[in-house]
């Protein structure tokens, strides 16, 4: 069959790779512009950590003069930082794991099964998206107190997972719906059960969407502030966002140290993104209709 691939390998025929198309040039220019606008504030956070607060206050955007490693070293050397990191990690892993696991199961049920009340149930899950989290925090706090989950990582992880379910299901369901019935029928013919189809075929095929919701759930949990604030009074239970308070007093804040702290806090979440991103883009994709 004549395909583009075979064409490009045929001798004597100019391939796309030999000419620089104007569209590519435009693409690179646009990329540079986007990077410029996006990256300046980010650089400010990263490099701001290498200045002193006095420097930052004198000139908010500028190069460190001199470069000061003290903020980063002091934070990395403080046991409290690693404690915050650990707490954040535990909660985020539990919340993300629960949200993605339960969400994909529910998404599967809501997409590949037909039953009465399916759309209504889907609507019920969507409700969680429509209500501002902050307001639900007050009754949520009272509930957690009654169930004895205060000062407990589960007291944060469980509600976070619950509140991530709507977005997870919202994103997963259309992806799961898009997988053609033929694939499922073929699996059934091969003797797989419905659940087997789910586990062995559907999930791998949904990898881009799964990776996306994993990243979203993780980042949401990682940056969550209000719920941990209400649940934890003891500083040893604090997560990273709460840890910023250690650099703020009633009348002032150590800006440079906060910038360093924020940069370091971002690293694990960005790492999760890098890991997941390969799955989003480089995963088993495009082969659905093979």
């Amino acid at each position, binding site marked *: 069959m004549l395909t583009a691939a075979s064409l490009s390998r045929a001798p004597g025929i100019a391939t796309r790779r030999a000419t620089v198309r104007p569209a590519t040039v435009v693409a690179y220019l646009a990329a540079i512009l986007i990077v410029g606008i996006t990256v300046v504030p980010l650089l400010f956070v990263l490099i701001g950590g290498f200045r002193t*607060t*006095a*420097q*930052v*206050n*004198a*000139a*908010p955007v500028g190069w460190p003069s001199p470069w000061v490693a003290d903020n980063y070293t002091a934070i990395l050397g403080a046991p409290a930082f690693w404690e915050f990191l650990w707490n954040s990690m535990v909660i985020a892993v539990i919340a993300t794991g629960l949200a993605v696991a339960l969400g994909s199961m529910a998404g599967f049920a809501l997409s590949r099964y037909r039953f009465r*009340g399916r759309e209504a*149930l889907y609507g019920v899950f969507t409700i969680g998206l429509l209500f501002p989290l902050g307001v639900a925090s*007050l009754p949520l*706090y*009272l*509930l957690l*107190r*009654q*169930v*004895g989950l*205060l000062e407990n990582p589960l007291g944060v992880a469980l509600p976070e997972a619950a509140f991530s379910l709507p977005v997870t299901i919202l994103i997963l369901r259309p992806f799961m719906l898009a997988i053609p019935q033929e694939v499922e029928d073929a699996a059934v013919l091969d003797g797989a059960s419905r659940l087997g189809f789910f586990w062995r075929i559907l999930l791998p095929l949904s990898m881009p969407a799964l990776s996306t919701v994993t990243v979203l759930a993780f980042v949401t949990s990682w940056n969550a502030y209000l719920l941990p*604030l*209400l649940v934890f*009074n*003891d*500083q040893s239970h604090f997560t990273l966002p709460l840890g910023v*308070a*250690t*650099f*703020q*007093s*009633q*009348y*002032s*804040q*150590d*800006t440079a140290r906060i910038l360093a702290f924020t940069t370091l806090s971002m690293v694990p979440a960005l790492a999760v993104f890098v890991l997941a991103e390969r799955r989003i883009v480089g995963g088993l994709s495009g082969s659905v209709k093979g």
Partner: protein
Amino acid sequence: MRSIRLCAVVIAALLVAACGSSGTAGSGALTWWHNGTSDPLKSLWQSVADGYHAAHPDVTISIDPIQNEQFQTKVPLALQSDSPPGLYQQWGGGGEASQIKSGKVLDLTSSVSSWIGTLGKAAEGWQVDGKQYGVPFDLHVVGFWYRKDLFGKAQITTPPATMADFYTDIDKLRAAGVTPVAIGSKDRWPDAFYWDYFAVRECSTDVVKQSIKAQKLEDPCWRKAGDDLTALLARKPFQDGFLGTPAQQGAGSSAGMVANGQAAMELQGDWEPGTMAALTEDKDFASKLGWFPFPTIEGGAGDPGVTLGGGDGFSCTTVAPPSCPDFLKYIDGAEVQTKLAAAGIGLPVNPDAAGALKDPTLRQVFDFSRKATYIQTYLDIALPTNVGQALDDAIANFVAGKGTAASVAATVGQAATGDK
């Protein structure tokens, strides 16, 4: 569907299961909430706790530092539960009055009667209906911090004593190319300082007290305060874009501007030098700072000796161990007060500690506070929280050009009767 019914049963069961009490007060175990999340205050309070424990080994104090802004979220929730902290920080006035409604705040009147008198007028802000429900540990007073070098540049030899002098000085500063006054309007509460001060200059102390108690600002003097503020705004004393300037964050804040010599004055509390220290590389800035009280107004019915201020304090809860009031006495004792004053944490409420104030300007502020005929708590604290916040918002809108002097005064009455 069956699964939904099952869920409902489980949830109901969970809710009904009244979980056991989380922690008893215990004899001698005191949980302490304060806002010292960072040093020097964090270490200072820890050493205070250690010092008390050394003297009273049967009392263990465990500290939970809470970020300042989060107190208004966490305290109401804690007071609803069966196990609030034994000792927590609060700011007196109407906020305290609301907290008392929870029934969990300890009445300290009898336990502190022996020594509360030494604190002078400061303690009045923590009384509700004549009963002492909290005790201050430091005092704050609001006045004008100014740059002596910039005043010199504009050839102003003495700080203004009356409003008329103040207006003259504004003109002189403008003529010398200096921004006269910096203000952090974005945060709203700095605007309230001006309105509150005009109010106590135009209204007699009795009228102020009665109006706050009745939660209605009906006396015409309250409208005069708004008119005074209009007159001030008309002279354009503030920096460009002041509506978006924060009060304390970054060198572009109003505090930062004065710290870096970009503005000549700011109406702020005694914490100002501490805030400024972090906002400038100029190690010498403190020596360039001076302080003068809010100018008087000719013909104003207010007592010119009245000062606007507030403070920080602590309250004990009903679940605290019996040693809690004694710990308060320790905090207000000369030893701890001296430590606080030396560390620059506000003005001490115990006059014996005054000598520890290192900065001569702060000593000047402290002496002024002791001589004041009456310290009026900032109105947004003196009034109940919802009314006070509504007033602050009205003032901020007024400064931004929305509303009238009459509507600002009317806000209090409306908010108090449940208008939202």
